[in-house]
């Protein structure tokens, strides 16, 4: 059961990373990257690393997304 | 004989199943509904009621433990933050001039 959950999260991480890399819409890429951070946070917590999970939740899923959104707001939403 | 434990177990199952059902319906709504406002409406139900019911199930499952207080605080936070998020999203969309979807008239 635990292995299934691990594999599901890891597959999700790979898929999200591919979407982020391929997306032309930077806003969508930021949101998917935020969900990537959330999945990674779950995986850290599940693997017994709560310290890293807290950092990932605060920085990866939270603040990075805000900074990306501010940057997109100041520049352009579409990748050339 | 139905004991207290059975009733508790049944409560947990019902609450968790209802929470999961709300998540399922919310996800279906997010994918199928026609415009931004209705999708936000569906997605907010997911977070508020779905997560709220699941956390309530966890409260019953955990029993009278110190850690249950943390789950109660967590449930309160979800009940507070998730509708606010939905409201902020819908308001921002309305402010930027997004027109709600209407069914085509004859």
């Amino acid at each position, binding site marked *: 059961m635990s292995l299934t959950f691990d594999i599901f999260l890891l597959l999700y991480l790979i898929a999200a990373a591919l979407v982020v890399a391929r997306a032309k819409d930077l806003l969508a890429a930021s949101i998917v990257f935020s969900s990537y951070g959330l999945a990674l946070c779950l995986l850290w917590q599940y693997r017994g*690393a*709560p*310290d890293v*999970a*807290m*950092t990932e939740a*605060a*920085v990866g899923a*939270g*603040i990075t997304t*805000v*900074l990306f959104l*501010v*940057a997109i707001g*100041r520049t352009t939403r579409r990748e050339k | 004989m139905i004991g207290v434990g059975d009733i508790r177990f049944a409560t947990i199952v019902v609450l968790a199943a209802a929470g999961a059902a709300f998540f399922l319906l919310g996800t279906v709504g997010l994918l199928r509904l026609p415009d931004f406002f209705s999708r936000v409406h569906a997605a907010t139900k997911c977070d508020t009621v779905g997560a709220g019911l699941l956390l309530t199930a966890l409260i019953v499952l955990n029993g009278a433990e110190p850690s249950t207080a943390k789950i109660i605080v967590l449930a309160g*936070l979800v009940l*507070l*933050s998730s509708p*606010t998020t939905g*409201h*902020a999203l819908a*308001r921002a969309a309305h*402010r930027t001039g997004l027109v709600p979807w209407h069914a085509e008239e004859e």
Partner: protein
Amino acid sequence: MRRPIAISLAFLAAVPLLAGVAGLPVHGDPSAPVHTHVSARYIEHGVEEAGASNLVTGVLLNYRGLDAAGEVTVIFTALIAVLAVLTVASTRDADASNHDGRVRRSDADRRHPDHPVSPIVHFVVRLIAPFTALYAAYVILHGHVTPGGGFQGGAILGGLFIALTMVLGKERTRPLVRPVLAPWMQGAAVLTFAAVGAVGALLTGVYLGFPVDPSLRIVRDLMLIALEVGIALGGAAVLAMIFLQMEAS
């Protein structure tokens, strides 16, 4: 033609990497070097040697204190670079608008003048803010016992500052970071590491050395907590400054 070359180069680069992975010990193998050397020492003696019940903090700040010091220096340098780029961009924008003869409108004007922040969001953020601050302080100060610490608590503080700035406006939150204090807060992590390192050098003769003697236990705990607070202030200041600078320009 370039694509096949790129693909074959990628595969060629993968071969030594995979060979390297094949040479690693099996994951979770108890006889792997990582489990027989430092980890065993950390787990067996970490609590009394490093003075932190949370082994992660003990390793991060005590055993590997120099690495953490280097880490915060890197983050601080990155902040300087980002601020330098953003400040140049914003002064150039300001110059350009001055040359046009246009009056530069304030941020509040430029954003929807007659559309203030939703009262609901305003209320909820103000309601949650003190609890978030309390949680951040708990994570920072309790970091040597439970999961968490300076980096995590600093990130929570920075996030709280960003949320407050978005809701209350820069005019209300900017005074929290006084111009006199701002540079000290941005450098807080690096400066704290230097100060604690100097104290350690005085006590043990080694830079960032921690006294092991049980009678100096309180000193060691204070050093750890000072490091946590310094890292937290520095981290929060880094995140808040990047956000403020991006919003300003």
